[in-house]
Structures are given as C-alpha cells and as structure tokens.
C-alpha cells in the first residue's frame, strides 16, 4: 500500500514555509494568507488520516519506510497509531487557530514569524509520527529552534532571558536522550551480531524489549535520560521553572502552541518510547515519578493561586494539570492511561483557549496584572461568558471535557492507591479556588480605574477572535459528552502499552545485575 498521507501532513507546512520565504517583504498579508492556507491544508490531510484510520487494526498504520542512512540502519519511517492520530489532529487544529490568532497581534517581521510557525508545525507533527528513534530525535530538536525564535523575537520585555532558559533546559534533556538513543541502538546491534539493520526502528526495538529485553543497567540509565528529556518538556516538578518564564514572554500564539502541543511532546514520549522500550526501569522508577506528579499537582495549583500575572497563573495551572497526565501514565493502569491521554487532549484545547483569551485582554490593555482588572463583565459580556466557559472546563465541570480526563485518572489512581488518589483529588479543590478567584477578580465588581482609563479601547471580543475560539469550545463540549470518540481511537495504544508492561518487573535498585 503506497500511502503518503503521513508525509503529506508532515511536510505540507514546510512547503508553505518555503513559499513564504520567497514572498516579498512588503506584503505581510500574502505571508499571512499563505501560512493559513498551508496550515489548513495540513489540517485537512490530518483529518483524512483520522477518517482513514482503523481503530480495530492493531499496530501502526499508513506506515512509510525508506532507507536513509543504511550504514546505521537509520530509516525514514513514519506511521500512526491511535495516539499519534489524535495528537496530530490536535496539532494541526491548534496551529491554524494560532496562525489566525496571530494576524492581529503580530505586525513586525510577519514573514519570518509565519516561516517559524510552519517549521514548528513540521517538527511537532514529525515527533508524533516518527517511528525511527533517530528521526524522532531530529524532529524533537527541530521543534526547538522556531520556538526559540518565536519567544525571542516576538516575545515580551524579558524575552531573551526566557527563550535562552527554554532552550538550555530543553537541550540538556534532549542531548542526554540522544546518548541514550545511541546506547539503546548499539545494544540492539550488539545483540544482533553487529548488524545495524533495525537498530533505530521503534517497532523492532519494542519487540526486542518485550522478548529479550535490554540489560538492566542500560534500562536504568537510558530510562533516566529519556525521563529527563520528557520531564523537562512536560514539565514535571522540579524541571518546570522554564515554563512560567517562557509562557509569560511568548506571544499569545506561542503560548497556545507551547501549552497545547509542546508540553504534550513530553507525555507522548513517555507513552510511546520510554515505557515500552524500558518497561522494567519504568516500573522501578514509577513510584518516584508518581510522587513528583503529586508534587506538581499540588505545587502548581498553590503557586497558581498567588500569581499576580494572569498568564503566569494559567502557566502554573498547566504544571498542575500536566501532573494529572504523568500520574495517569505512571500508575500503569487502564483507566489511568485513558484518562492521561484524554487529559492531554483536553489540556491542549482548554489551556490553548485560555491563553487565547488572555491574549484578547492583553491586546486591549497591554497589561496582565490581575489586580488592575475588575468588572470586565459589564463592558465585555461575550468575552466574560467565553472566559467563564473555558474556566469551568479547566476546573473540571462535568459535561465538559476537562472533567472526564481528570475523573478517569482519579478512578485509576484510586485502584492504585487510595491515599494517592485522595491527595490528587485535593488539587481539584485548589483548581476551583484559583480559577474562580481569578474569574471573580477579573470580571465582577465595578469596572476598575485602570480599565476605565482605557475608554473606548476596551472592546468586546472581535469576530476573528471568536473564530479561533468557537472550534475549541465545540470540541470541549463534544469530548465532554462523548469522550468515547477519543478513547475508542486510542484503544490499541493503551492495550499495547499495558500488555508490554505485564511481563516487566521492577529492578532492585541496590542489587541489579
């Protein structure tokens, strides 16, 4: 079967970026239009991928293989399973929304901005579809550079500090992961009589991990390296400190993508690579990772409570929400994993929307200090209602998608350990606290002095802005009522991850051989 859909989805944005590079500088409108068209085409292709996907079919679909560096058995191998499909569609959706949302705020160097954004999309989709570890690593790093530029060039006042911090954090993790990838491939090659064929092929490596298994020492070290790379991206406590800076300084669309997709790369890495390749090590480290997740949950929520800056508040709430994802993954339990995947999607939709909403108010006031706001609901009723909707989705109101993911994770966690589940549930109270309190300070009461001073500038939400939010709101409702739409797709992924773990046993950290 010659199916190139996956490559098309991945590289259509690149074509768009190349076209934009040759457009005249004086015509930013052309660059904007081309970027939007490229993103929409990629989105349509990804929908095609979704429609053609067979949930009952085990393994990867639409696989494309071509030799790339035969001397090391490195291939261009891409393909999707349910998890990939869901995340690819999430990526393409959020990308065109972000590009649309950038039309107004980005007025300088539009051409470069759109090129960066489309290359960023290539990297993100590539990470989700790569089935060769070397290729995966390359896409993983490709994501880094455009984001560095987006924050550094189009960001806020303190953007340079934030962007360099972002790059250095991510790079330390990912370079160690590179060593681990090479060591893993070498171990595979060594076990196959020095033949490199398949040494970077994810499917063959996974089969090897499920049968012979990698040596304990390698597993412990390599998992740690993968963990570091992914934990920094998620970000898990205590590797999260780059996130608030990056979010606060990034332009609105940058924040949307950062929260919506980039954080998912880490969680995806755990589910796709770290756990299946090193199941014994995963079981060994799981308790520690669960503890870190709990800390992230509580800590993120408490810190969010006291943030004076609106964007920082949403950023810390991300730390907390992603804690649910890692918790759900590492309890190694069916509901937990389903919940984690659902939470990944929900967080992408809801937090993406919240950042868009923060962008709306920022564009009018050029300020994000919560204390200077107040009484917005009188002047901008539609905005207030929309914000309220996503705020409720974020705190987990039943009927909206945020609830289902968190609920499933908690159910799974309860089966794993009631105490852990109890602690995790506490977060939901904190979340209600910081979200409602924020909402109250922003929208209720009399119009604040600061906002009064803005006069006619303080307009309600505009049609273009609505256009970016409506699809997200629709999906939040749909997935809230019919979570099965996603769960059904990722059935195969969940089963395969959990069955790979069944034979695994935790390694005794003190007496491993």
């Amino acid at each position, binding site marked *: 079967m010659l199916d190139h859909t996956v490559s098309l989805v991945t590289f259509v944005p690149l074509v768009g970026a190349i076209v934009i590079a040759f457009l005249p500088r004086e015509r930013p409108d052309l660059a904007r239009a081309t970027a939007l068209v490229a993103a929409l085409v990629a989105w349509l292709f990804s929908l095609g991928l979704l429609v053609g996907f067979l949930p009952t079919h085990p393994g990867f679909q639409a696989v494309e293989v071509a030799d*790339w*560096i*035969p*001397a*090391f058995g490195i291939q261009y191998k891409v393909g999707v399973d349910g998890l990939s499909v869901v995340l690819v569609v999430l990526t393409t959706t959020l990308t065109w929304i972000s590009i649309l949302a950038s039309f107004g705020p980005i007025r300088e*160097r539009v051409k*470069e901005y759109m090129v960066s954004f489309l290359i960023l999309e290539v990297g993100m989709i590539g990470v989700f579809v790569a089935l060769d570890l070397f290729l995966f*690593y*390359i896409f993983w*790093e*490709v994501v*880094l*550079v455009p984001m*560095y*530029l987006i924050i*550094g*060039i189009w960001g806020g006042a303190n*953007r*340079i500090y934030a*962007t*360099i911090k972002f*790059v*250095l954090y991510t*790079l*330390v993790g990912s*370079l*160690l992961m*590179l*060593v681990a990838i*090479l*060591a893993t*491939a*070498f171990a595979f090659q060594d076990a196959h009589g020095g033949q490199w064929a398949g040494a970077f092929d994810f499917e063959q490596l996974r089969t090897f991990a499920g049968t012979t298994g990698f040596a304990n020492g390698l597993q412990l070290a390599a998992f740690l390296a993968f963990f570091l790379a992914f934990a920094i991206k998620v970000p898990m406590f205590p590797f999260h400190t780059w996130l608030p800076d990056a979010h606060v300084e990034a332009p609105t669309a940058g924040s949307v993508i950062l929260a919506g997709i980039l954080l998912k790369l880490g969680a995806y890495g755990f589910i796709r690579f770290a756990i299946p390749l090193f199941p014994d090590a995963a079981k060994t480290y799981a308790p520690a990772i669960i503890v870190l997740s709990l800390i992230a949950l509580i800590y993120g929520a408490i810190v969010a409570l006291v943030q004076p800056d609106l964007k920082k508040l949403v950023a810390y709430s991300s730390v907390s929400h992603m804690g649910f994802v890692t918790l759900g993954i590492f309890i190694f339990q069916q509901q937990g994993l389903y919940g984690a995947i659902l939470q990944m999607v929900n967080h992408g939709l809801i937090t993406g929307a919240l950042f868009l909403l923060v962008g709306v108010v920022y564009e009018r006031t050029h300020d994000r200090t919560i204390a200077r706001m107040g009484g917005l609901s009188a002047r901008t009723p539609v905005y207030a209602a929309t914000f309220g909707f996503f705020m409720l989705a974020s705190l987990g109101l039943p009927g909206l998608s945020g609830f289902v993911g968190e609920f499933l994770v908690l159910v799974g966690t309860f089966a794993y350990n009631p105490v852990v589940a109890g602690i995790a549930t506490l977060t939901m109270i904190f979340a209600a606290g910081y979200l409602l309190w924020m909402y109250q300070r922003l929208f209720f009461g009399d119009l604040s002095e600061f906002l009064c001073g803005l006069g006619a500038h303080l307009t309600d939400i505009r049609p273009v802005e609505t256009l970016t939010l409506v699809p997200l709101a629709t999906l939040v409702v749909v997935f809230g009522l019919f979570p099965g739409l996603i769960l059904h797709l990722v059935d195969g992924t969940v089963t395969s991850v959990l069955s790979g773990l069944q034979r695994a046993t935790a390694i005794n950290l003190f007496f491993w051989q």
Partner: protein
Amino acid sequence: MSWQDVAIVGPLVGAILVAIAILLVDLVVPGRRGPALTVALLGLGLVAVLTALAGRTPGQAFGGAYTVDALTTFLDLLFISIVGLTIVFAPDYLEPRDLPIAEFAAVLVFALTGAMLIAASTDLLVLFLGLELMVLPGYLLAGFAKRDSLSTEGAIKYFLLGSFSSAIFLFGLAYVWGITGTTRVAEVAAELARVAAGGAALQPGLALGLAFMTTGVAFKIAAVPFHYWTPDAYQGSPTPITGYLSVGPKVGAFALILRLFVGALGPLRADWLDVIIVLAALTMTLGNLVALTQGNVKRMLAYSSIAHTGYMLVGLAAYAGGRQEGLQGLLYYGAAYTFMNLGAFAVVAALQHRPGVTSALETFAGLGRREPLLGILMTLFLLSLTGIPPTAGFFAKAYVILAAVQAGGALSVLAVIAVLNAAAAAFYYLRVVVYMFMREPVAETEPQRHSSLVWAGLWATTVLTIVLGLVPGPLLSVVTDAAKALTS
C-alpha cells in the same frame, strides 16, 4: 625514484606549481586580484582532479615513505576545499585593508602542500617535514596585517609556541626512532606491536617519547592545557585567516595524529587512551566555559574551536577504546567542522568588510534586519556548530558520541560530558543569534555589498552544512574507507 613515484606525488607537485604560478602571475600583472585569484582557483581545481585521479590507484612511493590511499585522498580533498574557500572569502576583507592578495593566496597554497604531505606520509621524518611545511606559512599568515600590533603579537606568540611544540615533538620522535630503529610507520608499528605483545610495562624511553609527542601534537591541535596561544593568534589575525587557522592547521594536525598515533603508535593505544580521554574532557569543558564569557565573536569562535578539538578527540579516544567508528566519526567531524566553521568565519569577515568594524557582539546587533540573508546563513552555521539537527554538526557529533557509547566504560562518561558541553555551547552560539535577530542595532549602518565570490563561497558552505546533515550516506562511506585504509 621512478616514473611511478612521480605519478603518485603528482598532486603534491601540482600544488607547488600552483603556488609558484600565483607568484609569477603577480610578478607579471602586479596588484590585480583577478588574474592571481583565477590562477589560484583554477589551479586548485586541477589539483583536486589530480588528487581524485591519483586516489583511484592506491600505491606507495619513495620506498614506502609516501602513501596514497583512501585516507590521503579524503584528507587532500578536504585541505584543498579549506584553502580554496579561504581564498574565496579573503579578498573582500584584504583589499580594503591594502593587504596583498596574490601573496596571501600563494602562502596558503604552500601551506596546502605541507598538509598534503602530512596526509600522505608514512614515514616519521616526512611527517615532521610536512608538519613544518604546513605551519610555517601559518605564522606568516597570522602576522599578515603587519602594521597591526595585535596581529604581530598573535603571530609572535603563535610562532614561539609553535616552534617550541615542534621541537618537543621532534624530541619525542627521536626517542621512538632510537627504540624502534626505524622511521617507517609500518615498521614502527610492527616493532611496537612486538613490545606491546610482551605485556611488559612501557619502557621509560618509549613512555617519554610518547609523552613528548603527545604534548607536541596537543599544542598543534590546541588541546587544553596547551591552548594558550590560540585566542591571541586567532584574534589578532585578519578574520578570513583566522577562519583558515581554526580549520586548516587543526585538521592537518589531526591528519598527523591519524598517521602517527593510529598508524605508527596504534599498538600502544591502550597506553595513550587514558591521556586522550583526559585531554578530550578538559579541552571540551574548558574551551566551552571560556567561550561562554567572550564578548567578541572572533574570540568566542576561537575558544569554541578549542571545544571542537575536544569533540574530535572523543572520536580518537573511542578508537583507542577499540572502536573503528571512532576514526570514522573523527574524519566526519573534521569535514563537517571545516564547512560550518569556515562559513561562520566568512560571515564575520563579510561584516568586517569596511576597515575599522570590530567583531564585537554589538556588530551583529540588528543584522537580521539589516542583511537578513547573512543573518539566516550565520544562524544556520551556529546551529550546526551547536549540533542541532538536521545539520552537519549534529550528525558529526552524534557519530563521535555513538562511537564513544559503543566503546563503553569510561568513554560512556566522556560521551555524557560531550553532550553536556554541547548544551553549554548552545548558550554562546545562540547569543549571537539573539544579537542578530532580537536586538536593535546600536548604530544605524548601511547594508554592505559583498562580492559574488563571497556569496558563492557562502552558498557552498551552506549547502554542504545542510547536505552533510541530511544525507550523510555518501560521506559516510568515504570516511569508512579512509579509516579502513589506515588500520588495515
């Protein structure tokens, strides 16, 4: 000497003739850049063709002192590209400063002959001869701007330390000759293999010889702690020459290491492994740490070139640890480093087109707005130097790290040190990007015009930087053959 010998040394003789031809042309039509450059570039092209032709029939000349094999061909072609690119980049910089272009090109081609001699020599004395032939023009080049006190200072430092290290190296060579009784690489290796097979501790004489030779070579490649001459020599030299000095003599010295340490001293590799590991770790770490604090891009690139020496040494260490891939990685790294570093220096030189412009970070402020294309190309070179895919620098780094991981043991630790260093290096490389794209220019300066020669060179390095990262296959098989030729 037979006709066959002449055919084998043909490319080398060709290079000497090119250098003489450049001088003659300059005598006939003095002071014009066109004719001299045409002769130089055409001549180099011809030498490259000759090299490729000679490489098709491997053989030895002069009783085994001069060898043409896959390694020689690869290194020769690399040297020719280095010299060719330098000649392409330099005129735009030299001309406004009234520095003679023809002499510059001739001196460079003379240095090329030295490097080519190193690449082909399988005799310790010829090796030394080649080394001196390569570095002597380097001293001249470092002091090329003779009215500039910094240039003169750098040249004197370079010359003094260079001579010292040559003497130390020669001293070590004498020990090895005294103990093995021969200067032919193959025979030295055979003799040392006998010594190593005995399993006894290294004789004091041999140990001394090894230590002296390592020290001498470490000076030449600017490995820490023998690197002190580098920043001054590099900063003082005219920028295109700095680019050459950071690549040419370094790759040349690595060629010497391959012929000497791998070819002749290979049997003793267990004895020099530890030294190389320590040298590599120190060189990477210190080079990067000091580069972090530099506010001048040229000086920063000088220190970062020290760090790159360290990464290449990781490949050598992996070889000593029993992995052929280490040599392949080292050779690949050499090629990748050549193009990305020459490209980066070419951009710095292009910015300094007008005399009086410094290479301080401020010069780069707002470049992305002033000359976007130059800014984008520089970003690409810097990303490659950092090791971000899909560039040549990434694949080269992955290759040496893979070899180190394969060798295992202490070398796995070295691999981790290498990647942590790469992360640290990102900070200072990306700082230049910050200045280019994220800061406003200090003073409004006009965009400058660069000659089409410079653009051609920049595009060549750009394409190679990308291709060696995206399609490493072809070069991979070349370096595999080269490494095989050396060890079989």
